[in-house]
C-alpha cells in the first residue's frame, strides 16, 4: 500500500517538474528559432569575443538580452555553438545566463529584499563559475567536448581557415550535406518561416524527451531520499554547504523560482549554504543532465559537474568565513 502511494507521489512530482519546466524549454526553443529566422547566417555570433575572459563575460551578458532559465538556455546555447560562436562565449552563456537575467535577479530580490549581500553575491558567483568552467572546458579539443552531431553542424558555420574540408565531413566531400546536417546549415539566406518552425518543432521534441528523462530521475530521487537528511546538518559550515549543494542537484527547480525555495530554509542553514544552493542549481542538476547530453560529451558533463561543485563549495566556504 505504501509502495503504491509512493509510486503515485513520484508520478505526481514527475508531472509537476515537467509542466513547470516545459514552458521554459519552449521559450528557449522559441528564442533560438527566432534567432535562426532573423539572422540565418548568424555572422554576429562568430564575431563574439573568443578571449578567455571576455568570451565568458560577453556570453553571460547575453543572458540579459535572452532571458531564460537553465532549461530554455540549452537550445539557445546549442544555437550559438552551431552558428560557430567561440566556445568560451557559448559556455559563458550556458552557465551564467540562467542567473544573469532580469527575471532571476528580480525573483532573488523579491525573496531576499533584506539580504543585499546575496543580491550581489549571486550574479558575481555565477560569473566566476562561468569563467572557471569556460576556461577549463576550452582546454579540451572540440571533438572531446561537443556531441558529434552538434560538432558536425558547427563545422559548417566555421570558416575554412579554421576547419578543413575533411573535418567538415559533408558538402564537397564526405556524406551529402543534406543527410548529415539540417537543411538550414550555414546558409545566410533567410529560410521560409514554416521551415524554421518545423526545425524548432524537431528541436523541442528532442529536448523534451531529455527533459522527461531528467524529471523522472529527479522525481524518483526526491521520493526515495528524505529531504530531512539533506538539511539535517544545517548548522555546521562545510556540511551545510555540501548538503544544500546536494539538495539543489536533487530538487531541480527552475532558476527563476529557486530563491523562493531557498527562503524556506534560509533560517536553518549557514549563509554560504544558501548561496551555494542558488549558484549550483542553475549550472547543474538531475533534470539538466539529460539536456546537457545534447551539447556535451559525457566526460565534459562529468568535468562540468565536478568543477562547478568545487567552485561553489569554495565560494560558500569563503562567504561563511566572512559572515559567520
Amino acid at each position, binding site marked *: 500500500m*505504501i509502495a503504491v*502511494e*509512493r509510486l*503515485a*507521489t513520484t*508520478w*505526481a*512530482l514527475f*508531472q*509537476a*517538474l*515537467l*509542466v*513547470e519546466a*516545459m*514552458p*521554459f524549454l*519552449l521559450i528557449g526553443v*522559441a528564442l533560438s528559432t527566432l534567432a535562426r529566422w532573423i539572422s540565418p547566417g548568424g555572422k554576429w555570433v562568430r564575431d563574439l569575443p573568443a578571449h578567455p575572459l571576455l568570451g565568458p563575460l560577453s556570453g553571460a551578458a547575453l543572458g540579459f538580452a535572452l532571458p531564460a532559465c537553465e532549461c530554455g538556455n540549452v537550445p539557445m546555447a546549442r544555437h550559438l555553438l552551431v552558428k560557430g560562436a567561440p566556445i568560451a562565449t557559448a559556455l559563458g552563456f550556458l552557465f551564467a545566463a540562467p542567473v544573469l537575467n532580469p527575471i532571476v535577479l528580480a525573483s532573488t530580490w523579491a525573496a531576499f529584499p533584506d539580504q543585499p549581500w546575496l543580491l550581489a553575491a549571486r550574479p558575481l558567483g555565477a560569473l566566476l563559475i562561468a569563467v572557471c568552467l569556460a576556461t577549463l572546458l576550452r582546454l579540451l579539443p572540440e571533438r572531446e567536448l561537443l556531441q558529434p*552531431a552538434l560538432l558536425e553542424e558547427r563545422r559548417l558555420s566555421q570558416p575554412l581557415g579554421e576547419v578543413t574540408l575533411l573535418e567538415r565531413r559533408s558538402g564537397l566531400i564526405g556524406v551529402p550535406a*543534406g543527410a548529415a*546536417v*539540417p*537543411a*538550414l546549415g550555414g546558409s545566410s539566406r533567410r529560410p*521560409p518561416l*514554416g*521551415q524554421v*518552425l*518545423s*526545425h*524548432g*518543432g*524537431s528541436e*523541442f*521534441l*528532442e529536448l*523534451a*524527451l531529455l527533459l*522527461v528523462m531528467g524529471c523522472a530521475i*529527479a*522525481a524518483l530521487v*526526491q*521520493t526515495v531520499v*528524505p*529531504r*530531512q537528511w539533506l*538539511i539535517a546538518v544545517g548548522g555546521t559550515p562545510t556540511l551545510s554547504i555540501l548538503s544544500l549543494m546536494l539538495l539543489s542537484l536533487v*530538487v*531541480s*527547480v527552475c532558476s527563476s*523560482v529557486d530563491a*523562493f*525555495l531557498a*527562503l*524556506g*530554509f*534560509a*533560517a*536553518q542553514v549557514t549563509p554560504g549554504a544558501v548561496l551555494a544552493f542558488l549558484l549550483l542549481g542553475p549550472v547543474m542538476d538531475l533534470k539538466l543532465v539529460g539536456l546537457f547530453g545534447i551539447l556535451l560529451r559525457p566526460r565534459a558533463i562529468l568535468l562540468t559537474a565536478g568543477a562547478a561543485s568545487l567552485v561553489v563549495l569554495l565560494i560558500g566556504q569563503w562567504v561563511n568565513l566572512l559572515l559567520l
Partner: protein
Amino acid sequence: MGQSASALSPGRLKALALALWGVALLQSALSGRLDLLLRAVFHPLVWGSGILLLLLAAVEISGRWSDGSRASGRWTSLLSIGAALAVLALPPRPSFADLAANRQANLLEEPGLSFVLPPAQRSLTDWVRLLRAEPDPRLYAGDPVRISGFVLPMPGEEPHLARLLVRCCLVDAVPVGLPVRWPAGQPQPRADQWLRLEGVMVSETVGERQRSVVDARLVEPIPRPRQPLEP
C-alpha cells in the same frame, strides 16, 4: 500497405507528438490537474505553451516543410508520443501525507501577517502563521476554529490536520499542520483523508511546554478542494 507507411511518415509522427504534448498541457489546465501541481501564477505559461505546440503541429501537418535533418527523428517522435500519452492517461494522484512525511515541517519562513482575521474565519494556514508569530496559547484559548485540511500522521502523537504550502510547484511543497484533539469514541481518521473541523482552540501541556491544540467537536469528511495547495 502504402497508406499505412504514409500514415506513419516522420512528418506525421512529429506532428502527432507535438500535438499530443500540446493537448497534454492544455488538458492539465482544463481538467484542474494544474491546481494540484503548480501555483496559479504559472498557469498562463502552461496554457500558452499548449497552444503554441498545437500551432507547431499544424505547421507540420501542412506538410510543406520537412526537417529531414535528424536521423533519430522517428524514434524521438515515437518516444515523445509514448511519454505524452502516459501523461494524458495517468493523472497525478499524490499522497499528501506521504509527501509531507518526506519534508521538514518547520520550513515556513518568518511570517509577515498584515492583519489578523476573526478566529472563525482563519484558515489552517492563517492559524499556523499566527501561532508562529505569537505562540502564547493563553491568547487563543476558547477561540472558535473552523478549518479544513488533510490528515497527517505524526510519530508519537495523534494525527495533525495539515496543508501543503508551495512557492512554485508540488516539488517544493512543505507541510504546515495543527495538532488536534480528536473526538472521543470515534475511529482515528486515516492518513491523507480530507476533513473539515469545527471546534475550539485549547491549551495543553506537552512535556514542559504549553501549546495550542484544536479541540474538535465536529469532524466532517470532505472531497479534496479544487486548489489544495496554498501559497
